[in-house]
């Protein structure tokens, strides 16, 4: 029977604030020095009280608006209560029934290559827990708790179950990653846990019957999301064919499974979290937050162009290929900005795209630099390319200037726009349109190369190479192709 996978994602994003969400401790990944970024508040000491970090709330508003969400005019903080050693207060400060935002969307690419608006059900702000560190030697050593992470501002983004395939799940997460890094609210470093994903997966058959919903946890890479959803779809199909267990059957509850990235399987997790009663209630230590329409409008007016829109504009207005637009935008906002400045400086988007996606990216990778650190600024590179489009220099000369500019940087010389023209002059790279000078140089080179002339006359065409070399040394801005043609004409007696 035909089936459709029904997939919803829950994504946790750590926000890039200077300090934690309810205290003044630094918000920094620092597992090497456990429990050094703590204070009575994030340790949950008796008598300590939380105070909301305005910056965390502002970054949350920016994110929700970039996700096309509605902002609630009134929101509050709730305590989600459960015991775990990494949760110092015995409750997590979160948002339950009045999240600060809801009803948004983000586009993902379907398995068929179409765009789908995946609806965002809600986004709410909460505090991250610490980290339990278990002895993995198998010798049964003590477990330890690192509370450096406790109190990191964490945004939970919950989609509607609108996603229909593993590929689409991955695409959604990639789009989200790109958006979050574009707007600068998170570094989304998945190794460090700044972006974490859980997936709710089940299958719906054409006759309306559905398999039980499974929440797959620990999806901490893009590939992991795709592989886990794929695995879970197949597993549920097999399971259903074996047992016939379906959603709504008595005793069928939501199951939690963990993704084992080593073995590429999902495993049932012990401990029924569904059975937990979190006993939510409003946190009496914090005031509710009201958000005015004015604040929402102000933030909206400063939102940057979202990456998906930027890609479309690059294709539509700048005639870039989909591939180039993807490469440029996927490198991040700064890179896209760099490209746009190069393009507008040289007034040739296609040429700019070629250079930034090839030469610039290659050098950035070789030198392990990000674009802000790249020594040739966008206006400098734009000027080099402008000289090409003006036909002042050839593309080959442009490459020489590019290399020379990098050498300048390596030797700590300033790389400026005026340096570009100096290099062109110093190295005689200007395209020579003065035929008199070229004719003279050819005549001189021919006169200096009797052996080559002899060989040429004996039918060895490649003998011209030596003469071309001599001419090019004299007239550096000359076009080698043109030089070659003129030499042959000269030798052939024309």
């Amino acid at each position, binding site marked *: 029977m035909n089936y459709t996978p029904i997939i919803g994602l829950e994504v946790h994003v750590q926000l890039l604030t200077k300090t934690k969400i309810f205290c003044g401790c630094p918000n920094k990944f620092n597992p090497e020095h456990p429990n050094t970024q703590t204070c009575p508040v994030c340790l949950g000491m008796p008598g300590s009280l939380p*105070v909301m970090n305005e910056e965390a709330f502002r970054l949350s508003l920016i994110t929700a608006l970039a996700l096309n969400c509605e902002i609630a005019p009134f929101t509050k903080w709730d305590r989600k209560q459960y*015991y775990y050693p990494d949760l110092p207060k015995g409750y997590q400060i979160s948002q339950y029934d009045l999240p600060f935002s809801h009803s948004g969307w983000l586009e993902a690419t379907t398995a068929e290559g179409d765009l789908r608006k995946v609806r965002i059900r809600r986004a709410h702000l909460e505090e991250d827990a610490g980290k339990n560190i278990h002895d993995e030697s198998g010798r049964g050593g003590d477990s330890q708790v690192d509370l450096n992470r406790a109190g990191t501002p964490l945004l939970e983004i919950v989609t509607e179950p609108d996603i229909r395939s593993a590929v689409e799940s991955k695409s959604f997460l990639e789009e989200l990653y790109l958006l979050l890094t574009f707007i600068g609210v998170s570094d989304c470093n998945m190794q460090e846990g700044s972006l974490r994903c859980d997936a709710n997966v089940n299958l719906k058959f054409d006759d309306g019957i559905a398999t039980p919903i499974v929440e797959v946890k620990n999806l901490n890479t893009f590939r992991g999301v795709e592989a886990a959803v794929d695995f879970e779809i197949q597993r549920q199909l097999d399971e259903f064919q074996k047992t016939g267990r379906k959603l709504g059957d008595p005793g069928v509850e939501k199951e939690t499974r963990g993704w084992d990235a080593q073995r590429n399987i999902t495993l049932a997790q012990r401990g029924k979290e569904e059975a937990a009663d979190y006993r939510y209630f409003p946190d009496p230590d914090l005031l509710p937050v009201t958000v005015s329409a004015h604040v929402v409008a102000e933030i909206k007016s400063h939102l940057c162009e979202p990456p998906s829109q930027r890609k479309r504009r690059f294709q539509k207005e700048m005639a870039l290929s989909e591939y180039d637009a993807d490469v440029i935008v996927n490198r991040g906002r700064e890179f896209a900005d760099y490209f746009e400045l190069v393009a507008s400086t040289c007034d040739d988007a296609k040429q700019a795209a070629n250079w930034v996606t090839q030469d610039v990216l290659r050098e950035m990778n070789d030198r392990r630099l990000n674009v802000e650190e790249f020594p040739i600024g966008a206006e400098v590179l734009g000027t080099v390319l402008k000289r090409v489009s003006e036909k002042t220099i050839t593309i080959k000369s442009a490459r020489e200037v590019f290399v020379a500019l990098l050498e300048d940087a390596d030797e700590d010389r300033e790389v400026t726009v005026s340096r570009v023209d100096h290099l062109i002059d110093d190295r005689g790279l200007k395209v020579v349109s003065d035929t008199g000078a070229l004719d003279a140089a050819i005549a001189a080179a021919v006169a200096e190369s009797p052996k080559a002339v002899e060989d040429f006359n004996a039918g060895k065409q490649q003998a011209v190479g030596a003469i071309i070399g001599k001419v090019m040394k004299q007239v550096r801005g000359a076009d080698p192709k043109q030089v070659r043609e003129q030499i042959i004409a000269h030798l052939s007696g024309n």
Partner: protein
Amino acid sequence: MSLAELTVTELIDRLVNGTTTNVEIVKAVLERIREVEGAVNAFITVRPEDELLAEAKAYDDKRQAGEAIGPLQGLPIAIKDSICTKGLLTTAASKMLGEFVPPFDATVIARIRQADGILLGKTNTDEFSMGSTTENSAFGVTRNPRNLDYVPGGSSGGSAAAVAAGEAPIALGADTGGSVRQPAAYCGIVGLKPTYGRISRFGLIAYASSLDQIGVCSRDVADAFLMLSVIAGHDPHDSTSLGTPVPTFPKKADSASLRVGVPDEYFGAGLDDEVRAAIQRTLDLMKGQGHTVVPISLPNSKYSLPTYYIIATAEASSNLARYDGVQYGHRTSQPGGLIDMVTNSRTEAFGDEVKRRIMLGNYVLSGGYHDQYYLKACKVRRLIADDFSRAFEQCDVIVHPIAPSAAFRLGEKTGDPLTMYLTDIYSVTANLAGLPALTLPCGTTKDGLPIGVQVVAATEQEETLCRASLAIEKLLREE
């Protein structure tokens, strides 16, 4: 009269005019502690004598040298043991925190230090402030200095008893459902609980966060407001602290007449006749002085007790979840797995009343009961507060009893939690509505036990509360 029995204002006068010294005062207080503490047990911790005398001497030297000294003038101050003091044992009278030494000062402690007060010691309380008699302490019961067979009230019974017994000129308590005012009344002193948010809660070990408010136990009204002006005011570390400026308080009664609201509902069945008579006499004195007595109605106050016990226990169950034996506090010697470790640590270290309230609180917040109990209580709380707002359109202050009776005998109600909870019936409304309230002694029973009268003002109207209390105090003294 011994230095140990003078008010803060009197002590400051003597210090400033040079007729006594800080060393003499500390010595007198320590002498009194040596005399009575064995019987009263007001303190869990008294700081070492040499430290106290050294600090006192430093203030004497400063004064001698003509240096400015802050408003507390180097006087010793007793602190309820649920308020965190950096480097000084802070137990909340629980075995759970039996060895807990906070790495930080509560905001009120920082302000007391800033104002040149000396921390004398930490006073006994019901465990985590849960109780009305100071009988639920892991460090033994406190006895009422007026009659050692009687309870001092609670939960700030240690602070009230210390001030009443001359073991401290003034003390800080904390009031969640009457925990400063009721023991003050039982011990025959003044107890002040300001508007919710007037004093920072940062560093106060939470019982019920939306009700908790630090307060003052003192020998007279002026002292209570002197201390309030030191410790009150906005604190960026407490989101619920008020942003409005602290008023300046009058030090002496004036002749302005007041409209005194008297709620019929607070004088019904269950009120002890002697208490009723003492309050009535106070009201008569006020009338005689030209104040107007206005009958008012607070109809929803009849729901105050269940409302209070639902909200307080709900918040308490959550506030006490942090005591899991993981990071600080008592950890069982039988940890086993995680669940056993948490369960055994809590089972071993919490007393019965604390366990009872944690269970009640978890029950009223649990799935299926949340709306029926917790949510409903929150709605009734609003109705109770609205009653007060309406009443204050007709009057400046409200006067009513603080408790249905004077102090009762130790052990008299420990076997019956429900009867015990009923003693809070007149005190919890000020917490539910967040209003400033004060009790002061207005008589004694035929057995010689103090009777307190309670004065309540509208939110943030501590200045009015101060004026009314000073006026009543003057009338009762002149009687």
